[in-house]
Each structure stands twice: as structure tokens, then as C-alpha cells.
């Protein structure tokens, strides 16, 4: 059993693998807790896997998970996390932009009682436009999710494994992990970390489209309220729309004679409310068919309970 697992997704990083390994080893040479490194090869088309596999011969603390194809960063992180054995899981990028020397510090914060620690790249070494897009996305996210996380895109994070193994990880969920954890009731800390410009290879990110992030936020908010109360996720909408319908019908009746267009509108709104009620029932059915919905809702309570026991 190890204390800390370091999960690093790799995609076409043949030049960086060895450097990364050296950087981690030297940064953690004086690190007291035992650690392991889980490298996830996300279907690289170059020699990333061969080089990483060669390192395993020399370093028993290394484990490599090889994907059959390219499934994206979230999937790679999820696979690494599921295959990690440590009580604390640290994630970082494989392109050496994060600095492993920050790891002892963020792990220390977890030991101090936080459930999740997020890096904040204060002096970001990326192109101006990319930094700008990221800042806008972060502020939208902060507003819509009601959780202020300075730098959600920073890959250098640490979690207690009981938290991260329970969070949903698919699509591009990794971006929302800090906000999701916070909403689940986890104790979040943010800490400034070093950030280096890329040495080798090209950046694999396109400009994340803000619009996509917004759509994702809407769906995640709904998922959260669904997880808390499966039947009730559209309740505000249903009440609002029913009111609209009733007002429209009342307006149609009150005038001189019956205003047909207004009546039609009222009926339309009421029918929408009925449909949404139907969707809510479907949601309840889905929740009762699945066992992992309630797991998320009770996560926060469980986290704090576990912490008191373990300490």
C-alpha cells in the first residue's frame, strides 16, 4: 500500500516521458510518504508507451496503463485514478508545465485536513489568447456554479482518493472536478504553483470554446440537483411554467370575450409543465434503477465523518 499516487496522462509525449520521470524522482527524493506514479498512455501514436515501459524496468514505483485508442484527457485521468492505490491522488500534466516540486506542498495541505487542493498558475506561461479564454471560462464557471475556483484548468491537483473515486468522470468532467467537489461539501484549498513553458512537443488543447463550457455547466448543475433529489430537478421550472400558463389563461378569460391566442398560449405552457413533470418521473425511475446516484449526494457527509475517524 502506498500513501500517494501521482497520475499523469500522456498523449504523444515521447520527448517528455523520461524528463518527467526524472523530475518526479528528484523532486520527491526527500519525500517521506511512499508514492507510486501511474502513467496513462492515451493511445499515443509515437513511442511514448515504449519509453515509459522501459522506465518500469528500472523503477518499481511506476505503473503504466495503456489505452487501446485515444479517449481524451478525462478518460485518461479517470483510468489513472481508478488504477491508483494511494490514499491521496495527485494529478498533473505530462508536458512538464507543472512542476513536481510542488507535490509535497499540496500533499501537505491534504494532510492538513483538506479534501481537494487545486493549483493556481498565477504566472501562466501560455499564449495570451489561451490565458484569456481560460480566464473568461473560469469566471463564467464561478458565476454559474456558485463556486469560485481561480484556475479550474490547472492539472496539478491533489485529492483524497475516497472523494475522487466517487465523482463522475466522463466527457470533459475533469474541468469541473474542483467545483463538483466543493458542491458535494468537500473542503477545498487553492495554492499557487509554478508553471513552465512547454519544452517539447505541441500543446494538445484547442481553444476551449466558452459556449461548450456553458452547456456543460448547465447539465452538471442539473445533474447535481438530480443526484440530491431525483424527482425534483425541474421543480422550479415546473412551478414557474404552471404560473405562466395560469396567468395566460386568466388573461384570456378576463378580457371582453375569450381571447383565443392567449388561451392557446396558456394551454401550451400548462402542457409543457406536464411534460416536465413526466421527465421528473422518468428521472426518479432512472435513479431508483441505479445504485450510484445517492452515493454522490451523501459524499460530503461521509468525507467529514471519515476524516474524524482516520485522524
Amino acid at each position: 500500500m502506498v500513501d500517494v499516487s501521482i497520475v499523469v496522462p500522456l498523449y504523444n509525449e515521447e520527448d517528455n516521458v523520461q524528463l518527467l520521470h526524472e523530475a518526479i524522482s528528484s523532486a520527491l527524493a526527500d519525500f517521506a510518504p511512499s508514492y507510486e506514479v501511474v502513467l496513462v498512455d492515451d493511445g499515443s501514436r509515437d513511442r511514448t508507451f515504449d519509453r515509459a515501459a522501459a522506465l518500469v524496468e528500472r523503477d518499481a514505483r511506476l505503473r503504466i496503463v495503456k489505452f487501446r485508442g485515444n479517449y481524451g484527457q478525462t478518460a485518461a485521468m479517470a483510468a489513472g485514478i481508478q488504477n491508483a492505490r494511494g490514499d491521496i491522488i495527485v494529478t498533473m500534466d505530462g508536458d512538464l508545465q507543472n512542476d513536481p516540486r510542488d507535490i509535497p506542498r499540496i500533499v501537505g495541505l491534504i494532510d492538513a485536513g483538506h479534501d481537494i487542493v487545486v493549483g493556481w498558475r498565477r504566472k501562466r506561461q501560455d499564449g495570451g489568447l489561451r490565458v484569456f479564454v481560460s480566464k473568461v471560462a473560469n469566471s463564467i464557471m464561478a458565476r454559474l456554479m456558485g463556486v469560485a475556483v481561480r484556475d479550474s484548468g490547472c492539472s496539478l491537483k491533489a485529492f483524497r482518493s475516497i472523494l475522487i473515486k466517487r465523482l463522475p468522470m466522463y466527457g470533459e468532467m475533469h474541468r469541473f472536478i474542483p467545483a463538483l467537489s466543493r458542491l458535494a461539501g468537500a473542503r477545498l484549498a487553492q495554492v499557487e504553483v509554478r508553471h513552465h513553458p512547454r519544452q517539447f512537443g505541441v500543446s494538445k488543447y484547442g481553444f476551449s470554446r466558452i459556449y461548450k463550457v456553458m452547456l456543460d455547466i448547465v447539465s452538471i448543475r442539473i445533474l447535481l440537483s438530480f443526484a440530491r433529489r431525483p424527482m425534483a430537478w425541474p421543480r422550479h421550472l415546473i412551478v414557474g411554467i404552471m404560473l405562466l400558463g395560469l396567468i395566460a389563461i386568466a388573461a384570456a378569460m378576463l378580457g371582453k370575450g375569450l381571447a383565443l391566442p392567449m388561451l392557446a398560449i396558456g394551454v401550451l405552457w400548462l402542457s409543457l409543465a406536464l411534460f416536465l413533470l413526466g421527465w421528473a418521473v422518468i428521472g426518479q425511475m432512472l435513479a431508483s434503477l441505479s445504485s450510484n446516484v445517492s452515493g454522490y449526494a451523501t459524499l460530503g457527509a461521509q468525507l467529514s465523518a471519515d476524516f474524524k475517524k482516520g485522524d
Partner: protein
Amino acid sequence: MIASAKLDLVETMDVSVVIPVSRRYDDVRRIYAEYRDTISASGKNAEFIFVIDGQRDFPVAALEQLREEGEPIEIIRFSREFGESACLREGVRRSSGRHILFLPAYFQLGRGAIAQLLSHMNEADVVAARRDRQSDAMFNRMRGWGFQTMARFAGAKYDDPGCMVRSVHRSVFDEIPMQDEKQRFLPLLAEVHGFKVIQLTLPQAESDAGRPQHRLGVYFDVMMDLLAVGFLVRFMQRPFRFFGTVGAGSILCSLLLMGFLLFQRQVSNVPLGDRPLLVLVVLLLVLGIQIAAIGLIAEIVIFTRGDGKQHYRIEKIVEHVSGDA
């Protein structure tokens, strides 16, 4: 890697040839001789499985005679028509070869094309053929082109789903269940599941060129399947991105229309309350919310069934094996 090593124990056959026979077929003896000679010329041993889709007038006797002459033929006959994918599924179930080669019961590709496919068989999990339509009839070429464009739009790179000639490694069927008509898109689905897929452009048989191929309804079905598969491939993880966009579009239309109505009321003093156009505004709004709600339900479906293992495939895990571990 591990899977194929395990299967080696039970497999003796290199290739299982599955030939579905439905409405269209050429002379059985010629077809069989051609296929057999091509495959044995490549030095592989093969079994042949003919699956006859309830065609009453198909000359089964000829096949049975071949079988009695000692040819490695298995014949499965459906009592009525179940469709091509049922044939393929049944054929795959009875097969034992390491690779499964799907071939049509008529000459679809030109001479030598199948030999070419066989020579690439070991390079990938799925080898799909695509007809070179240079000599095809005008209408078929147009249709082929239209279909390709459509396929590209839906995100499919393998653009001749009508071409039945494919070689598929057995391990693919362990992960991709053959459902309804989805077998047409097997190359695409296999790629999504992380298998290696290559597509070869091969010459079309002369007898295939210029033949009107299906009834019109078939094309419609194929289009619907294409959309379904394209949707699954693109938005499986984030359905709300799709539905949310469509819903937002509808809501935006409604708001624009509402703006126009308000403008008319303020400027030209047209009363708002009893205008039929107002119904359209609300209808679009309701529609938009409905579509978005469907997207949210789709998200919930994925969330509730997601144990996180469906969306990636691990080929192997490498770690240090020490004595005391």
C-alpha cells in the same frame, strides 16, 4: 494481445468466411470456387458459412452437393427472411476462425481485390473495403457520392457501408454486439472502441457496376442508422451539447420573433395580446425547453449508469513484478 493468445488454444481456422444470401446472388458454384481459390492461394485455411435468408428459390442443392464433395461448407437456412444483420450474427456465432471475412453472395469487387484484402488482414483488427466507383453507372455514383458526404457529415470516415467485404478479427465481436442494422457501421464502431481499422479502396466488379441496388426504403433506413451512429459517436458523452444547442436555437428564434412583435407594438401600435404570431413565439419557446429537457434526461441516463468503465478501453497495464509482491 492477451485475448488473442488465449483464443489460440481453441482456434485452428485462420479465416471463417460468412456469406449472407438474400435477394441478390450469383451462381453459387462460381462464387464459391472464386472465393476458395483466392483464399487458398493466400495460404490460409478457411471454412465457409452460407447463411440463407429464407430465399425459397435459392439453389441450396448445389451447395449441399459441394458439401458432400468434401468442401468445408456449413449451411444455415432461415425459415423466413430476417435481414442481413441476422444472417451475419448467426454466421459469426457458428464460426471458429481467428478472422471473420464477410463476403457477399455476388461479385461486388473485381478480380484480385479479395486477395489484396487478405494480404492486409493481419495489419488491423478490421479491414473494410470501399468500392472504387469509377466505372459505375451514373446514378449509383451520384448515390455513392451523396452517401459519402452524408457519412462525413455524421463523422464516419468509412464511407461505403454498402460494401459487404470486410475482414474482422474475432476479438472485435467480444466487445461490439451486433445489433439491428448497425453492422453496416462496424468499421466506425470498432474504431470508437479503440480497434485498429483500415480502409482499402478496391476495384468494383463489372457486374456490380450499373446495377440498381436497393429499394428506396432501404436508403432511408441506412440514413437513419447513419444519423444514430454519428450521434452516438459524437455526443455519447455529452448529449446536452447537442440537445442544448438545438434547444437554444429554438429559444433564440422565439426571442427574435418576440422582439419583432414588441417592436411592432411600440412603433406601429399593433396590439400584442390577440396576435396568432404570439402563439408561435410561445410554441418555439416550449419546444426549445422540451428539447433541452430531453438532453438533460440523456445526461441523467449516462450519469446513472456510468460506472466510468464504458468510455475507455485499457489494452494493458505494465508494472514492475517483484518477487515479494
